[in-house]
Every structure is written in structure tokens, then in C-alpha cells.
């Protein structure tokens, strides 16, 4: 005899739960394959990385990372013979390829540039975006709609369309290949997105909260910091992630405007390919490294992000 148990008509049944869970996990696994492949490749030796059929099981090696962090020079066997025994680690790996380490590569300065430029411009864009959005949300700004449209209109074309004028201007005022120049550029691109996203979030915060705070003895600035900012945290976090991802990944301007001092990771990574054969493990190692900050940042803000990207759909 079958037993009938009462269940809600809107809550999913256990079977539906399991099926939907399985679908989500399967989809997640599929989307993660390329990432997993990159990380795996970074631990392969160059021959393993181009083996056919591709190797799923392999002996892990740090050769990719050694090659990424160093520059090497090929030596004659006689010269190598004459050297003292290599130290274990990168030294030994490099020696086994008939090379010696000539010095550190540019990866650390490039990575540092990426961090400074991406986080710097994200901070600026979100900061400016927040106060601008607040002003548009709360005050009677003359021609507010037109100004907001103008801000949005900077997004109507791909930013690269203005690459040549910017290149010429930057050269003229000495901003080419500088951290400041890149931070300003990415901020300019991101600030329109930030203003529009954040205005939506701040509009949703009832102004009664600030009014209550002002009655309670706070100035408007205090009320903004104590009452608006905490409630806009979700929107600020979501906006920060969007801005960071753009600035972190941006390639076209970086190629055009940076060559040394301020070069970021995106133009640097393809540069690795050209250095003495196609060193895929080194490229994969660079990519893996490149993924980490975004990964960490997103994990840190995930609580906010989840609410942030579904904003409008979920009422408080």
C-alpha cells in the first residue's frame, strides 16, 4: 500500500531537489573544465602539455612556474658540466633542459602593476560612483536625466573606439605607460557603470532612514556613512566586482598604452608564448596566478554578490 504524505504544493519534492541539484552540479563541473585544464597544464612538463592524446593523468612538475618566474639561457653541455651540482628545485629543473637561470622574469612587477591598476581604478570608480549615485538619487540635480544619459552614453561604443585619440593624448601629456594613466582610464570607463548600478541600489534605500538619522542628531554626511553605506554594501560589492573584472581583464588599452613600467598581466601573458618556443605550462601558470586575485575577491564578497546580482528580484 502506498503511503501518501502531506507536502507543500510550492516547495520542491525531494526528488525534484535531487534532480535539480544534479543538474546544477553537472553544469558547474562542465563550466569548470577549462579552468581545471589550465591549472592542470600549469603543473605539466612542456612535452606533457602538448602530448596527443592529451594526458589527464601525469606526473606533476613545477617547470611551468619555474619558467614563468625566471629568464633562462641555453648553455653548452661543456659549460653545464663545469658548474657545481644544481640545487634542488627550479635550478635542477632548468639545468635538466640544458639551461641556467639568468635572472628573475618580469612576472612579479607585471602582476603588481595589475594589482595596483585594477584595484586602484576599482576603488576610484566605486567611490566616485557611490557619491555620484547618491547625489542623483537624493538631490534635485539640474538636468539630472540628461546628465545621467550622458554618463550612460559613454558606454554606447566599445571603449577601444577611442583608443587612438587616447593614445595621442596620453603621449602628449606624459600619461603613457604610467600607473596613474591606466588607473584614470579604467576609472573613466567603469564610473558610468558604477553610477548606474549604484543609483539603482541607493534608490531602493528609503530616504526615511537618512531623515530619521538626521532627526536623531546626525549630519547628512554622518547619516550617509552610518545608514546609507551599510545598506548599500551589497550594491557596492557587486559593482566593485564588475569594475574589478573589467580592469583586471582589460587587454586592448593595456597593449596600446603600456610597454614596460605600467604593463599589466593581460599583455604580458601572450608575451610568454613567444619566448623560446611555445611554453604552454608557463602560460598556464601565469593564467592560474592571474585568476587567483579575482577568485579570492569574489569569494570574500560572495555573500553580498549573490544578493547583488539578483537585485530587484529579491525584496528585503
Amino acid at each position, binding site marked *: 500500500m502506498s503511503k501518501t504524505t502531506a507536502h507543500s504544493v510550492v516547495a520542491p519534492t525531494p526528488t525534484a531537489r535531487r534532480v535539480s541539484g544534479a543538474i546544477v552540479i553537472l553544469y558547474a563541473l562542465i563550466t569548470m573544465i577549462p579552468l581545471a585544464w589550465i591549472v592542470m597544464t600549469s603543473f605539466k612538463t612542456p612535452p606533457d602539455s602538448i602530448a596527443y592524446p592529451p594526458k589527464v593523468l601525469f606526473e606533476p612538475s613545477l617547470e611551468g612556474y619555474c619558467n614563468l618566474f625566471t629568464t633562462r639561457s641555453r648553455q653548452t653541455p661543456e659549460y653545464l658540466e663545469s658548474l657545481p651540482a644544481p640545487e634542488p628545485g627550479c635550478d635542477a629543473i632548468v639545468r635538466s633542459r640544458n639551461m641556467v637561470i639568468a635572472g628573475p622574469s618580469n612576472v612579479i612587477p607585471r602582476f603588481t602593476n595589475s594589482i595596483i591598476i585594477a584595484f586602484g581604478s576599482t576603488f576610484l570608480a566605486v567611490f566616485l560612483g557611490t557619491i555620484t549615485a547618491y547625489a542623483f538619487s537624493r538631490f534635485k540635480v539640474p538636468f539630472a536625466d540628461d546628465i545621467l544619459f550622458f554618463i550612460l552614453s559613454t558606454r554606447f561604443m566599445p571603449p577601444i573606439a577611442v583608443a587612438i585619440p587616447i593614445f595621442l593624448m596620453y603621449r602628449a601629456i606624459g600619461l603613457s605607460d604610467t600607473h596613474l594613466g591606466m588607473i584614470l582610464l579604467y576609472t573613466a570607463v567603469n564610473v558610468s557603470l558604477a553610477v548606474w548600478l549604484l543609483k539603482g541600489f541607493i534608490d531602493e534605500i528609503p530616504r526615511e532612514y537618512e*531623515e*530619521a*538619522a*538626521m532627526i*536623531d*542628531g*546626525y*549630519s547628512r554626511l554622518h547619516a550617509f556613512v552610518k*545608514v546609507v553605506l551599510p545598506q548599500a554594501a551589497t550594491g557596492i560589492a557587486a559593482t566593485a566586482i564588475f569594475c574589478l573584472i573589467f580592469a583586471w581583464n582589460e587587454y586592448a588599452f593595456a597593449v596600446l598604452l603600456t610597454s614596460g613600467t605600467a604593463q599589466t598581466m593581460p599583455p604580458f601573458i601572450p608575451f610568454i608564448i613567444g619566448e623560446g618556443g611555445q611554453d604552454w605550462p608557463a602560460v598556464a601558470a601565469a593564467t592560474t596566478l592571474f585568476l587567483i586575485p579575482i577568485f579570492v575577491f569574489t569569494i570574500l564578497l560572495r555573500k553580498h554578490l549573490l544578493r547583488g546580482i539578483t537585485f530587484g528580484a529579491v525584496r528585503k
Partner: protein
Amino acid sequence: MAEVVLSGVTKRFKTVAAVESLDLTVHDGEFIVLLGPTGAGKTTTLRLVGGLERPDEGSITIGGHDVTHAAPAARDVAFVFQQYSLYPHLSAYDNLAFPLRSPARRVPEDEIRKRVGEIAEMLRISAKLQNRATQLSGGEMQRVAIGRALVRRPSIYLMDEPLSSLDAKLRSDLRLELKRIQQDLGATILYVTHDQTEAMTMAVRIGVIESGRMIQLGTPREIYTAPASVYVATRLGQPAINLLPVGLLPDGGAPTGGKTVGARTENLRIAKAANGSANATVDWIEHLGDQNHLHVTVGDHKLVTLADPESDLAKGDRVSLSLVDPLYFDASGKRIAASGKARIPQGNG
């Protein structure tokens, strides 16, 4: 506590005047209720006193100081909003402590703890102090919101329909509570509502507002028994006052110029009609438990009055209706005294 005076205050939004040449004096320790329908300008009046709006004309003084152009923080007022009353990112305790931690006050933390504790006790929310504001029920939230005003001793408490989002039971509990607290503290309160029961039970004086103008200001009893106009009369009384043309029903004789008769339940005598004396028909009866609403048709006019639940009136019955001391209004809607035995309103209600 202090006296608050509004003189000739006008506030326009674009071309619409939300408040127009409003004069109002709230005496020290007085509980004034502003009564009027949505959009009458009650909330704008409160916001003007609180400094959330600046008047276009007129002046506002609190305790003798002209605060017409002062910032909200500088006015020493407390405001209870109709909704969105608590800071959602803070606990109930921090919400109550918020005004005391403001740069304008900076009360020491142990003093804050003491004051918050007392108020929480008074409002019976002590057990919920550590809850996040969003984890409170509607009634608890509103009590915390009222508490946030009460932790301070401002010149005046401004309350904008603080009970309107609550259920009936809680509303009547808090109504009594608020009145008791007001008397205990000797607080000056300007309270806005469209609920006549709140106005009648709590107010020392009621101000009836229409389209931004103060139509009548007086004790609840004055407003009820001697309304200045049809508009004021329709604000009070449950069921609402019945407005009929003079002469439709027998009365003690209308004064000259009287065009409209206002009849509340207590002004109507109803009796089962004996043969030809019937002038009305019972349409239907709403049973509300403690009382019955009787819907009656007289000619083309419909009336609502109360009937004793024990009465044996039934739908379709022919009845005779007559008026006892009704209110009379002239063609412009102003009340005119009844001829002969005009009722003199009693002062201080």
C-alpha cells in the same frame, strides 16, 4: 519639553500648496493630533516642524527659538515614521541607542545602556534587544521605533501615523500605552493620523486639516459635537455621519439658511412603523458582533446607523425615522447653530 509655534507656514511642491498659511501652537506637554485624509498636508506639517522640509513662507519656533531654517539635528525633535522605521542593519538595541550616539549628543555608553534598558522595559521589548531589526515582528518594530524617540527628551515628539501598520489589537494596546507614557513624561506630542479613534482617545486637542489648511482646532469633544463644517463632521463618528437635505426627516425645526442635516447614530430615533407613519425601509443589516449596522433607505437617500443587536428589525421592515438634535449646515457647508436649544459645546474635553 517646550512650546512649538507655527505661524503662517506655507509649503508648496511645485505649484501645489501642501500646507497653506497654517497657524498652530502646541503648548508645553500637550498632545495634539492632526486629523485629515491622505494628502491633506498632515505629514508635510510634521516634516516642516522636524526640519525635513523648509517652509516657503512663515516661521516655526521651538521653545522660543526660531528654527525655521535650522537643520533637523539642531532642532531637538524626535520623529516616529509611519514605516521604514528601523535601521535594518542594526540590532534593536543599537537602533534605540542610535540617537544617543549621535555627534550632537554623545551620551556615555553606560548611560545609554541604562536609558535603553528603561525604555525597553516600558515598551516590553527587553527580550528582543539583541535581535536584528529585520527579525522583529511588525509590532515589535514599531515599538522599537517609538522607543527610539522616547530614549531622548526632545522638545517635541513628532509622530506620523506610528500605529497605522499594526493590527487592530496591537494598535489599541499601543494607543493606551502611548497616552500613558505621554502623561507620565509630560511629553509634548504632535501626532498625525487619519484614524478617528486614535484622535479621539489620545488628543488633548484635535486639529482637522483639509488641503493644507487648518479647518478647526479644538478638544475632541468640541470637534465631535460642534464641527465647524460638513468636512469636519464627516471626520468623526462611526458609522460616518449621515448627510441629508433639510426636511427629509422630521426634526425639531431647522434654523433659517440650513440646507443640510447631519445625523449621527445618536441623532436618529428609529421605530418599527405603525401603519402609515413609516418613512423609511431597512435595506440590510450588517452584523458586527457587538453592534449592528443598519442600512436604511429614505426616499433616494441611504443612511447608516447603529442598531441594538437584540432588536428585532429585519431586512425589508418599514420603519419611521426622526431626528433628535441633529447638526445643521448651510449651503456652503458651514455649521449653523440649531434654532432654539442649540447645544453648547463643553470646553476642555
